């Protein structure tokens, strides 16, 4: 079995997002970057499956060499090798085109991603890749069990939860509690140093997109109402047609 895990690299969830002087880019100064939290769940479950089935586990990232240290961390956690497509990730559609191009003749049995990246929150890369490669697709997946050549999944749907079975090849967008996040061992960190990060060139996607403006959300009103006067909240909410 061959498994691919796709990771995004995103500002730490506690980061305050500000813009640089051009007002079109996120100011990356002072921001700690992390592997997307949902992608981390996908990777953690993939590592468990690898340990159980001796599968080959490949990690893929679309992005610059700035992400190499985090890719190395995925290798330390247990991935066998990594691939980095060397282009800035601008948009979910573009990222999906790059992943499809890379994966189309690699015959992965299972591709695992996060249910969404926490920067663009599109939740769409896995669906695009699944349809691009004609794989079965499920997201968000909360439980995953292997059953011979079938997968038994617990998924979230628009109206609740469902238990389903699917066949390989499949692409899954993952979320908790599919697995517990893992911490690299000392031995993992040592062996990761010799593992390969293959860098491949991008295809560039087929439509033009550029950033025209970036705006950080406006501040909230921050009006305080004294506790003695709490009932007046109801009048305010009514007058604003909020209730």
């Amino acid at each position, binding site marked *: 079995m061959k498994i691919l895990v796709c990771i995004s690299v995103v500002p730490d969830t506690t980061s305050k997002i500000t813009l640089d002087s051009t007002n079109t880019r996120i100011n990356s100064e002072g921001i700690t970057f992390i592997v997307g939290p949902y992608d981390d769940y996908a990777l953690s479950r993939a590592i468990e499956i690898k340990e159980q089935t001796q599968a080959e586990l490949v990690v893929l990232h679309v992005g610059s060499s700035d992400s190499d240290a985090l890719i190395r961390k995925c290798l330390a956690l247990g991935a066998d090798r990594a691939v980095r497509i060397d282009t800035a990730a601008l948009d979910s559609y573009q990222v999906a085109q790059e992943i499809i191009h890379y994966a189309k003749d690699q015959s992965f049995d299972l591709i695992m991603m996060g249910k969404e990246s926490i920067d663009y929150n599109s939740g769409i890369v896995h669906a695009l890749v699944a349809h691009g490669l004609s794989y079965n*697709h499920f997201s968000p997946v909360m439980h995953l069990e292997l059953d011979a050549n079938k997968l038994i999944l617990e998924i979230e*749907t*628009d109206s609740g939860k469902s238990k389903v079975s699917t066949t390989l090849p499949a692409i899954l967008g993952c979320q908790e509690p599919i697995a517990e996040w893992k911490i690299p061992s000392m031995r993992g960190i040592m062996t990761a140093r010799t593992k390969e990060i293959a860098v491949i060139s991008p295809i560039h996607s087929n439509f033009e997109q550029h950033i*025209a403006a970036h705006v950080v959300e406006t501040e*909230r009103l921050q009006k305080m109402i004294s506790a003695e006067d709490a009932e007046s909240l109801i009048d305010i909410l009514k007058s604003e047609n909020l209730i």
Partner: protein
Amino acid sequence: MKNLAVFIDSKNGQISESSKRLLDLSSSWLVQNGLEGIYVYGFEEQSSDSFNSFSSIKQYIHITIPGLVNNNQVIAPLLEDIKQKEIDQFFYVKSLLVDSIAAFLAESLSIPLVSNVIKLAKVSDGYQLTKSIFSGKATLTTEINNNSFIAAFNKSFTFETTSQAGNLAISQAVIALGTDAQNKLIENYPLTGAIPLPDAAIVVGAGRGFNDPSNWGIVEDLAKELGAATACSKPVSDLNWRPHHEHVGQTGVKIAPKLYIACGISGAIQHLAGVNGSRKIVVINNDPEAPFFKHADYGIVGDVFDVLPRLLNKLKSH
């Protein structure tokens, strides 16, 4: 310039509020951009007067789904229909089902799919799509120089309408999706809450400040009175005080209601990540230093066990 397709969401034949707003937006968009007409796609039968208040609708197409919708083969019949209709643009309000269909259309038709759109504008050589990013902490406006695209709207989208006359009777059609041999449903666990959290226009959230699951009665009563869904912080669901699907935040459900009332929740950044998209936020907390107050439109420093019953009384007395 050709047609616009709009996917709508409905329950028991009632079109959801966000889909109605999207149809309003679509009618105006059509006029502003010289498109021909709107094809509306949905997953339920609709009575002929469902579309009375919207203009320029050419047809309603009811998509029937015999099984799961998780691979290309199943969706192929829909693609055939769409190809015949000369559709340039596709609009929908984000949902798991339509996300999957839209991704298939984007791949099959080689057109870009832009997620979490909150605003749309025509510019001289293309379109400007503004999307919500970082869970609502920022927005990003991108320009695409392509006449065809799919826009997945975030529930909090805004638009300016130009008023329009309604359609009278519109024609209807049915398309059946394929059956799925590879993917099988084993069991469904429908949501138990009265109002599904992701769709709710009003949400009452409660955190560890409530101390014990037996104290949730007041939260539920208030929610019921407001027609709101209930939500909770992550520790509350981790402690099994409330079901996991009620937990909002970075690792839980993301909500974008018109009103979010957060009670006894500190306002940790991971919680805010799930609620930033709310139009207005009310915070009730007995600690004046609670970080949530900085992210509130209206704040009350007070004990939830005192304030909530009084709010409920006031609501009932109206």
